[in-house]
């Protein structure tokens, strides 16, 4: 009781950390506690829905839940609300320096309305992104074709593999997360054409 460290430790224990339930469940049988925990979480988050989002900083994302969402906010000339609003209520750590989020300049000028296609490449192949500009803003930016990339890249390479190695063709491929490099390039190229 007298030791200086003790209350701290005690306090830490009194908070129900996830360790305890995990251990309890682990004693059970094959279906691990973590699976039950995840299933319950999914159901309850889904039941709550996505609507509990009102902060201004989040608006940009709510408006355009497409891949181009964050771009929409900036390209449309919207204030980069995220950093400012979010920090307002929060207490920065001692010595905290706000990290820059605006290093890459994003065009404040609006785009010409229309539909533009751009192509990009990664080490897996190419992809086409079609950008639709409405009212000077990006309305959507979806992948419209993929030369040899997802999902086609997999299909093509898999079919090659299947043919050469007599492996069964597959619907999808699980692998280490690839980056969106090709998409970014295609989007940039499409937006170049849309410059007013």
């Amino acid at each position, binding site marked *: 009781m007298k030791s200086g460290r003790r209350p701290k430790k005690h306090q830490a224990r009194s908070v129900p*950390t996830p360790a305890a339930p995990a251990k309890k469940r682990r004693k059970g049988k094959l279906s691990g506690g973590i699976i039950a925990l995840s299933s319950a979480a999914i159901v309850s988050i889904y039941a709550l829905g996505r609507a*509990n989002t009102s902060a201004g900083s989040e608006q940009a994302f709510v408006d355009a839940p497409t*891949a181009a969402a964050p771009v929409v906010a900036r390209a449309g000339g919207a204030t980069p609300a995220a950093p400012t609003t979010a920090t307002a209520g929060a207490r920065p750590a001692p010595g905290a320096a706000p990290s820059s*989020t605006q290093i890459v300049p994003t065009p404040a000028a609006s785009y010409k309305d229309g539909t533009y296609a751009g192509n990009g490449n990664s080490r897996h192949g190419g992809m086409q992104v079609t950008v639709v500009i409405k009212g000077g803003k990006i309305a959507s930016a979806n992948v419209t074709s993929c030369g040899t990339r997802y999902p086609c890249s997999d*299909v093509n390479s898999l079919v090659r*593999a299947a043919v050469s190695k007599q492996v069964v063709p*597959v619907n*999808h491929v699980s692998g280490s997360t*690839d980056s969106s490099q090709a998409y970014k390039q295609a989007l940039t190229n499409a937006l170049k054409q849309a410059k007013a």
Partner: protein
Amino acid sequence: MIQELTRGYVQTRVFMDTPVVIELAAPGYDDAELAERTDRAFDWFAEVERRCSRFDEGSELRSLSRQIGEPLRVSALLFSALDLALNVAHLTGGALDPAIGRAMERSGFNTNYVTGARVTSPLPADSPGTYKDILLDCDAQTVTLLRPLALDLGAVAKGLAVDLAAEELSGLPGFVINAGGDILARGLNPDGEPWRIGIRHPRRQAELLTSLRITDAAVCTSGDYERPQATGDGHHIIDPASGSSASLAVSVTVIAPTAVVADALSTAVFVLGPAAGVDLLDREGVDGLIVDADLNIVTTTGMERYVSR
């Protein structure tokens, strides 16, 4: 002979710096309805990204990272993501650690893929916090950080988004959500069979290790081959114990009922390596396939039933 294998209703968008493909096998359904449900499914990726991104100053996760020493009430989504990550952290002695953000930044994984902005967490150099510095209060739904931390939910966020997106598609005869190689498959494929899911060969790009028949399960793979560090020969899966790239495995695939579990365990097992990794998968009652540094394959005993013949 080129065979088009994704013949359902297919949409691709980019979230979390990776292409997300949704394929629906729903013959007889109206395209407009499928489009609407697909939109709603994709919305969950935006939602999870908005709350859990380490790369966005405005994310709820980053706001939480700035609150030290006092409980902060967070959204159910962020709370659950942290809860799941912490559970796996405790189960594995920290092989997966949601406080790994700082090491990730230092390894060069510090750029917002949309804006190109660099993120640098303002942490004192002598403050190497771990998951033990994160306390959750389930009743109050609050999180307390005992010291400044750079939180990272990279090992659970994508899986959780896949699971939530799947809820929007439930009831359809068959669908796959493929988030850059993290896959959840439900029902049957357009041929009326279990979905055929290949596992990428970690060293030969155009080849598969094997292919699986999957229905109502998630398949996630952690590998060392897709996201190299900018300098040196490391990759994106950092061993929290050493602060450098984990090297006991080169590819780990986990099959689990939920994508978030498959996602988290594939990362944890990647760090643990084949021996401890298979033990963990057995204890948690899930299956998996591990490729070690010499390209030897180790699997759980239940893996056999998924392999296509």
